[in-house]
């Protein structure tokens, strides 16, 4: 990947093509299909951002968090509550939300990152997330309880009442910036250190790395971007309820990582797209979406444990080698 020159310009070319496609896509979807597909496209973007933020912890940090719904939910709830309960502007509410999620990430991470062992890490993050869920569910006077918040006052400019087009571009810009920042973080020396920690924590400690600090920073960054995804999620649905905080949401984002491939940067985004599309198409044919998803997951675990993105990456490498590139 580092031969510079040719590869670099090729990457720019692919990037530009993807950019153009993402800009043209909503018009094609709206004219050729229906608003529903536009909604699906936005949903994929939001989940993709969530899955990629999460993957900073799972794929790059090697920490199996089972509580990431907490950060998605805290982001969404913070922004929604500020808009509903105070006269706070949209920009301010949007800006505060990820920091609230990151603060929660700092607290939960502080206790969790020192924990060794997949199951213990999963349980402690799950426990904290369930506490947040119970709070949102039961603290009626503050969070509106299980009714949730309906009709979040989304400003007219990005309102989804008439069309999803404006909101599509709003979400696209936010997601693109976030993904770019995540890419920069992953490629930075910090990202490299994080991966070396995942591969060999003992050796990393020997050369003087403060393991827990790196893991905590990754956890907080991941929570921050999950919080952004949470805000986009709440705006898309113009409603939020404690469901967003339930542990099955944390499970779903793990599945996306596995499905797409958690050792590839864009893998989780691919996983998110597959999950959202499959869910929408299969549920329109049968109510047994879970059966189909379960079978797909089992096939992935047994035959493609590196995920679909991982398989595609390997195949493309093979193909390039054959072509002598």
């Amino acid at each position, binding site marked *: 990947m580092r031969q510079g020159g040719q590869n670099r310009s090729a990457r720019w070319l692919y990037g530009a093509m993807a950019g153009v496609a993402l800009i043209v896509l909503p018009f094609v979807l709206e004219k050729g299909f229906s608003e529903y597909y536009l909604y699906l496209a936005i949903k994929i973007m939001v989940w993709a951002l969530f899955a990629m933020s999460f993957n900073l912890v799972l794929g790059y940090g090697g920490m199996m968090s089972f509580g990431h719904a907490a950060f998605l939910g805290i982001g969404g709830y913070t922004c929604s509550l500020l808009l509903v309960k105070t006269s706070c502007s949209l920009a301010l509410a949007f800006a505060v939300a990820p920091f609230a999620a990151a603060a929660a990430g700092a607290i939960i991470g502080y206790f969790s990152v020192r924990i060794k*062992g997949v199951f213990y890490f999963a349980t402690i993050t799950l426990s904290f997330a369930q*506490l947040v869920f119970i709070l949102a569910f*039961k603290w009626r006077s503050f969070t509106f309880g299980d009714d949730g918040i309906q009709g979040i006052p989304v400003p007219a400019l990005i309102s989804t009442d008439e069309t999803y087009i404006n909101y599509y571009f709003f979400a696209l810009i936010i997601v693109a910036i976030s993904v770019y920042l995540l890419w920069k973080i992953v490629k930075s020396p910090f990202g490299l250190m994080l991966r070396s920690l995942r591969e060999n924590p003992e050796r990393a400690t020997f050369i003087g790395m403060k393991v827990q600090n790196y893991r905590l920073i990754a956890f907080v960054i991941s929570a921050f971007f999950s919080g952004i995804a949470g805000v986009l999620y709440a705006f898309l649905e113009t409603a939020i309820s404690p469901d967003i905080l339930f542990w099955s949401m944390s499970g779903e984002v793990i599945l996306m990582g596995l499905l797409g491939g958690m050792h590839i940067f864009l893998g989780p985004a691919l996983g998110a797209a597959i999950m959202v599309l499959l869910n929408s198409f299969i549920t329109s044919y049968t109510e047994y979406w879970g059966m189909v998803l*379960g079978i797909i997951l089992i096939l992935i*675990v047994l035959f493609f444990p590196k995920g679909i993105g991982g398989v595609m990456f390997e195949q493309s490498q093979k193909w390039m080698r054959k072509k002598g590139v």
Partner: protein
Amino acid sequence: MDFDASMLFIQFISGLSRAMILFLIASGLTLVFGVMGVVNFAHGSFYMIGAYMAFTLTQGLTGSVGFWAALLIAPTIVCIIGGLVEVILLRRIYDKEHLLQILLTYALIFIFNDAIKMIWGVDLRIVDLPESLAGFLTLFGHRFPVYYFFIIGVGLAVALLLWLLLKKTRFGKLLRASAEHRQMVDLLGYNVGGLFTLVFIMATWLGGLSGAVIAPTVRLSLGMGIEIIIEAFIVVIVGGLGNIWGALLGALIAGQIYAFGILYVPNYAMAFLFILAAVIIIFRPYGLLGKQAQARG
């Protein structure tokens, strides 16, 4: 609320019966982890299948006969399904990383949930208690449902049987040996693969039994499996992963925490369980009865 000793006694008994249900479920979970090193997320599904089987059996055979038959047959059907799952799927992933094991059993939750939806539909189902167990029992001037004591009795009986099996039989010795050192048992010429299948069958039998036992006390719904699995998972972690007595202790604590939590702060009773889990993992990560060496995974 006034401090009232008799109220405490009532909550204590109700907490005890809840603890025994939790122990029945957690024992299967911890057995599988202790011997096989796999966390079976789908354990809640086996519990749910047990409960729905009990529903069908009590519909077919009315009266007391149906209930007792359900108690015997439901776990048996569940453990046959469990055996198939082990042979067809689980044994392929013992050497894979934990994440993949978790995901495979997680996928099974989706499949079993939909299978139950196909067979029994989405309506809430109710299992009737047999007359012999439907009454009340007076203890120190308080009336308790007889069924509370039935649940406690089943829990204690299972604990006793597990103790006898693990400590007094050759099979139990083998189980403990493979929990300590799987390769060595394999090298000594024992059929570890077959042993694992048997353990999984036992564990899912326990899961099915707990479902059949709890069926008359709740409304059966498609969410019941995933509702219980998180709680059972925490019980197992609190007690020490892979430790049967830890599961019993964890269940007793969780049962009482819930019973008294609901008395004083009804809205947040479940929160105490999660706080307990977090505190245990932070200060004693291998659980109350777990040994340091068992804190693997």
